[in-house]
């Protein structure tokens, strides 16, 4: 209430003038609330790392022991989970900068923290690249289109459809794209995070303008690369199938999960008494609304993709759903709709749930679990002959591995840097933020 434009004139209007300002001074926040104490988060990070490494090793050995394809698919789901989080956060960072969003200091900082670790995601994908491209001996287990057999006209497995796609879908170009995507994402993520951290020290307000400028180019490249990455890493698992909507679909799922993780981080900090006036129930309310918006967006895109394929009934499109609505997979589509849409939609409609850190964090955790389930539904059915639920511990371990390793790094990053932008020129907007609804 200290920033209403009445009664305290002179308090809210000098922002942006007179050079740098520190959010702690301006918002009368104890500076200790805006940083984590030295060494904080180490235990949590160590636990995540340990669990992650154990899970990855266990996945590897279980795969080695005869369930190779399933182990790789499980690990791939874990990789996609971290890719979704990191990419979603990169998109969110650039969107917030592009919109010149003033209220979102802590949200922007956490999005930067997560996306600046996208290099870990790139490394996490290396085992799959090595196993599929270099050690598969012509029999890839996930990306079947890599098999040279399929393009051999004399082979019984010759695939005309793949032959038509080989200009794009060939191993060398795929590897080039892998390097290109991650180098580009890393460049944008480290630039944006680096500038905002540099601003914390120097107070240079032009860094904000610079971030906004590259975000405009960045968003365009991000939209394209995100879509093509989803084609490369998810859609090509079933190389006969194609959906022009899939890129958007993957982005919607990723952004939803990314907002959920940001909420988990910020609500946890809030519940530990951190952030003070920089992140109140007003900010929480708005991050909750964004989670709600992306939940609806996910449902909208998912349904639109399904609806058109259902109507037109063209075999190369329906192949995807054909695999996922039959036999043991039959209950899954509805489980997906309920877990990913109905439950969070109804819960997030309630105003008080969005303003309560404990409840909102629970909803966000639910959304993250639902995202994992969504990836399960996306990737796992391609292992024909392996029933859903069969070897579910292997699937769980596979997902847990990359996710825990990624979270270990994220926890360290979150604790290392200030919890919000400290000297952003739009600080007064962070502090004055109110919903009025």
């Amino acid at each position, binding site marked *: 209430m200290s920033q*209403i434009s*009445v*009664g305290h004139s002179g308090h809210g209007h000098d922002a942006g003038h007179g050079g740098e300002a520190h959010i702690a001074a301006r918002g009368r926040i104890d500076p200790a609330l805006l940083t984590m104490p030295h060494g904080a988060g180490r235990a949590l990070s160590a636990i995540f790392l340990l669990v992650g490494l154990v899970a990855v090793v266990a996945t590897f050995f279980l795969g080695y022991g005869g369930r190779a394809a399933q182990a790789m698919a499980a690990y791939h789901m874990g990789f996609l989970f971290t890719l979704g989080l990191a990419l979603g956060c990169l998109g969110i960072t650039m969107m917030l900068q592009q919109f010149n969003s003033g209220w979102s200091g802590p949200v922007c900082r956490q999005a930067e923290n997560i996306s600046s670790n996208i290099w870990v995601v790139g490394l996490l994908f290396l085992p799959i690249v090595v196993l599929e491209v270099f050690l598969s001996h012509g029999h890839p287990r996930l990306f079947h289109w890599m098999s040279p057999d399929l393009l051999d006209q004399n082979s019984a497995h010759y695939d005309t459809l793949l032959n038509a796609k080989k200009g794009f879908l060939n191993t060398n170009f795929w590897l080039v794209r892998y390097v290109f995507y991650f180098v580009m994402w890393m460049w944008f993520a480290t630039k944006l995070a680096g500038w905002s951290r540099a601003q914390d020290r120097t107070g240079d307000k032009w860094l904000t303008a610079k971030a906004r400028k590259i975000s405009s180019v960045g968003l365009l490249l991000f939209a394209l690369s995100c879509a093509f990455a989803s084609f490369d890493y998810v859609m090509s698992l079933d190389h006969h199938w194609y959906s022009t909507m899939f890129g958007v679909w993957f982005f919607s799922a990723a952004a939803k999960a990314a907002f959920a993780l940001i909420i988990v981080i910020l609500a946890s900090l809030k519940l530990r008494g951190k952030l003070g006036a920089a992140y109140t129930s007003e900010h929480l309310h708005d991050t909750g609304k964004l989670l709600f918006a992306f939940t609806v967006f996910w449902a909208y895109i998912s349904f639109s993709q*399904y*609806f058109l394929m259902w109507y037109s009934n063209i075999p190369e499109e329906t192949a995807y759903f054909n695999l996922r609505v039959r036999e043991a997979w039959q209950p899954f589509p509805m489980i997906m709709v309920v877990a990913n849409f109905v439950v969070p939609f109804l819960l997030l409609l309630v105003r008080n749930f969005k303003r309560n850190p404990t409840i909102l964090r629970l909803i966000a955790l639910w959304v993250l679990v639902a995202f994992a389930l969504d990836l399960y539904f996306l990737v796992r059915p391609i292992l024909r002959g392996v029933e859903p639920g069969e070897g579910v511990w292997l699937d769980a371990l596979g997902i847990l591995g990359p996710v825990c390793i990624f979270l270990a790094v994220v926890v360290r990053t979150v604790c290392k840097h200030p919890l919000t932008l400290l000297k952003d020129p739009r600080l007064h907007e962070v502090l004055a933020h109110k919903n009025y609804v």
Partner: protein
Amino acid sequence: MARARTKIYKTSAGEVVYGMMAEFATPADTFHAAEKMRDAGYTRWDVYAPFAIHGIDEAMGLKTSRVPLLCGILGLSGAGLGYLFQWWVSHQAYPMVVQGKPYGAWQPFMPIIFEFGVIFTSFTALLSMMAFNRLPMWHHPLLKKERFLRTSDDRFVICVESADSKFDPDGTRKLLEKCGGYNVDLVED
């Protein structure tokens, strides 16, 4: 609409009193006066200003509106109704094969269900907002006051209705004056 009144006040000229208004010169004065009126326990009163004063709802102690809840309930019911209509038409009343799809398949219903949800929500929002605000209101006692008309220009007014259980001609006048209000005046109904 006759409202239950605790007591009917009359001016010396014998007119029924609608309430008591006080003028304020700045939004800040109005804001702080509103806080004092709220703390004094008044419930049936309002602030009139030429523009929105941020945070005035909290200063007045206004509770969250019931409009969102109604919108939620009616929006979901509308969506349900949208499904019911289509299901009745294409599954019960006149089943027809379209493109070889099953009778009463839910997929093609979805866009209409969505539209029904949206239209019910938006109409509920508009109509319930009007109902809660007693709109359309063709006349308001305050509009008879020449001085009140300046609230569309450069004056701020707080008016306490005589229907407020705490209303009392002397006490309310004193409080309004203490809050910084001037030209405190009775408003005839």
